[in-house]
Every structure is written in C-alpha cells, then in structure tokens.
C-alpha cells in the first residue's frame, strides 16, 4: 500500500485517497479547439516509466485535491504541490 504525503495532513495510507490521474491538464478553448486537440485533452495522458506528476484527493481525510510527483517504477513520492501553484521540477 502506498504511503501518500497529503500536503495538508501529512503522510497517510493509500486507502484514504482516490487517484486523479495526470496533473496539469488544461481545458482547451472550445471556440477554436480542433478534433485532434479535443482528443488530446479528453484521452491522452502521459504514461511515463519514471517520474509522473499526478493528482490525488484525500477523500477520507481533509477531502482536498493536490498534485504530487511519484515514480512509477519505485512508487517513491517526490514533492507535492497545490492546484494552480507552480509545478516543482521533475525529480531526478
């Protein structure tokens, strides 16, 4: 089970959270977006082998969303950051 660092509450068990997939996905401008752009927004998410910026919600805790870097090979967590704040650099 993952031990997830909620930036509001501190580290908690994975069972208190829900996963929100890739972070920093921005809504396209509906007035000008092409089919390809919509497809990218709706269906394409990064799927890296390594560090991944992703969203979690602490649903059985503070019930707040946050973003975090996590390594998809080791399951190690990197820095967390709150929505609409600057994304920390990809850990190495």
């Amino acid at each position, binding site marked *: *089970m*993952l031990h997830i660092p909620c930036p509001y509450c501190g580290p908690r068990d*994975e*069972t208190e959270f*829900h*996963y929100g*997939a890739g972070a920093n996905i921005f809504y396209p401008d509906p007035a000008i977006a092409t*089919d*390809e752009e919509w*497809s*990218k927004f*709706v*269906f*394409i*998410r990064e*799927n*890296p*082998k390594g560090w*991944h910026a*992703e969203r979690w919600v602490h649903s059985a805790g503070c019930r707040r969303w946050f973003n975090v870097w*996590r390594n*998809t*090979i*080791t*399951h190690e967590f990197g820095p967390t950051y709150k929505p609409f704040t600057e994304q920390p650099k990809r850990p190495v």
Partner: protein
Amino acid sequence: MATTTRRRSVELPEHPDFLWTARVTPKKVYDVIIIGGGGHGLSTAYYLAKNHGITNIAVLEKGWLAGGNMARNTTVIRSNYLWDESAGIYEHSLKLWENLEEEVGYEMFFSQRGVMSLAHSVSDLRAKARNYHANKINDIDSEWLTPEQVKEIAPIVNINPDVRYPVLGATYQPRGGIAKHDWVAWGYAKAAADMGVDIIQGCEVTGFDIRDGKVHGVKTNLGPIAAQKVGMVAAGHSSVLANLAGFDIPIQSRPLQALVSELLEQVHNTVIMSGMVHVYVSQAHKGELVMGAGTDAFNSYAQRGGFHVIEHQLAAAIELFPIFERAHLLRTWGGIVDISPDASPIIGHTPVDNLFINTGWGTGGFKATPASGWTMAHTIATGEPHELNAPFSLDRFITGHLIDEHGAAGVAH
C-alpha cells in the same frame, strides 16, 4: 484423510527442454520485426508465417519469452462482449481456440468449462440482460441463469438472499473456459520457429530508425536491426515505445494482480466472475484456486500492487464461496496492463508509415491471443486492417467512434 482424497487433478505431461532454436544474435535485416514476445507478439509472428507466407521475421523480447502479462494472467477465455465490433473479434478468437491445439500441434489445456457472470442488483440484472440479448443477436452462445440454476452448475456458490450482495441471476457462456497460458505461448513460439521465425530474447528496443515519416528499423541493446515493417506488441510498455517513435497513445499502464491458493480437491469446475463484488474464480488443472479482481488505481510499471486490493477481493470471494474461508493463500503477483479509454484494444496504423501498433487489451487480452495475432498479421502483411480490427483503430479517439466495453470488460477478464 489423505487416503480418502477425491482429487481429480491431472498430471501435466513432460515437454522437451528446447522447443525452438534460440537465436542469440539477430540478423542485420528482416522483412518484419515484432517488438514483444508475449502471446500477442508470438501469435502475430505465427499468423504472418502461416497465413501470409512471411517468414523472415524477428520477435524481439527484452526479457524472456512470455514473461510479461502472458505468464501472469488468469486465462479466462470468453467472447460474450456487448458491441458488434467486439463480438466479431472475440468470437473469431474463440473459434480459433477451438482448433488451436490441433493446428499448432501443441497441447494448451484449453478447457471449455463455461464462464458465468453474476448479477447482484437490479441495475446489474438489467445490464446483464442487455448483454445476454446482444450476445444472442450476434450468435454467441449465451444462457440466462436463475440463482437456482447457478447453484446447479456451481454448487459451491452461496445463493442465500440474506447476504450483502445476493446472487440474483447470471449470464453463462458454455463455450468459455480457460487454457494454460505458458503452454499457449510455447505452442505459438515452437510453431513460428518451425516456419523460420527468429525469437530473440534479451533484446530490448531502445529507439527507432524513422526517416521521412517511415520506419526503417529499430535500435536495440544488441545493435540496430533494419526491417521493412515493424509491429509494436508491447502491452504495458506500449506508451514507452510510442513515445520513442514520437507519438502519444491513449493508454495508461496499471498494476493488475492475481493470486492462487494452495492445491485443493476439485470443487469448482467452471469460471465464475462478479463485476459488482469484484472477484472472479476458477480452479486450475492441478487444483489451485485462481482468483483476480480489478486493477490498482494508479499508473505503475512495478509489476506489483497493493495488498489491500487482494484483501478486498478475498472478502468478496468468501461471501460468494463460504467454502473457501479456510483456504490458504499461496502466492500473489502482478502484471502491468495497458488500459485504454473505452476498454477496447487498439490494432492498426500509427502516425509513422510501416509501423503498426497492437495495444490496449488491458485486463482481458489473453482470450484474444489468437485473433489479435490473426488481425495484426493481416494488417502488417497487407498494409490495411482486417475487417475485424478496422473498428479498433487508433484514430477512433479523434473521430469519436469508441467501442465502450466497460460494462462487459470491467473486472471481468
């Protein structure tokens, strides 16, 4: 106690030490390179040789043959999906299974013991009824079972109405069943190698030679290899390869776990799945109970998942099958599955000419091993998709022609 055992387990026959010639150094040039030596890569190579007469093929496998999801799955085979497109490809697969052992000349323990899917709520019943009728229309064998009929086929199921998720009915596909996955891989590998296909283990593709929008070969840890055509059949690693070739695919890689119990007497001779309580169970030839559930929630390449997922599936199993209460868990493991947005595969062209992709089978591609290879081979050989895989194109995520199988795929494998 031991003398009164009623065990009916079968002894597996011995097989030879070497089934195919392991070529260690790849040739410099091939007609076709297949990336990935899992079930689908091997069946693709086999049908390229068998159906299309192309034998100058290399299957490149970064690890060992069928060490990925092919060796980790729970081998449920069925074709009772919801939509016509899925009925087409999965039923073609089931028909191929029905002759496969004779065709490739290798035992695979294909056993049509039936697959049952339980319903536990009113909405579940409605969805299952819809699926049952869709199967009927597509000429796929499908039966509707009352709880009493469930009990007749599978006496160990608890059909008491006073449990949290009572059994209210079920669909049943008698032609569904299981096979021994590694024997399937070995059978395809042997038959392909006999026709001249090179199977190269320990060969990882690390890049592509792409010029003017067209693939000319691959880069590997064993050096560059040229080819006229390349097929990516890498399951959980498909995104990594697509990114190396310069494009994105709508795939997320997630852990999917399974487990087995110790060897037990044969008590369960069909396959039972419950999407709602999240578990499915069969009993292997030797006697171990084989169980699985849903994926872990997050992206991963680690080939392991959380124990709480196992705990959840065992709680469900014990409510449905009280007889399992004291069985011991022997082993759990995980594979990395390639989840697509509509729970359907992607087989066909990529933005790069002569580079083809086969991915997105997620939690349920073992059953499709024959048809996946059949249609992929057709696509590579002719340059155009077979009518069975044409709907499963990568560009359906732009056109919007999705084939939504979440209801029929879900936890059900």
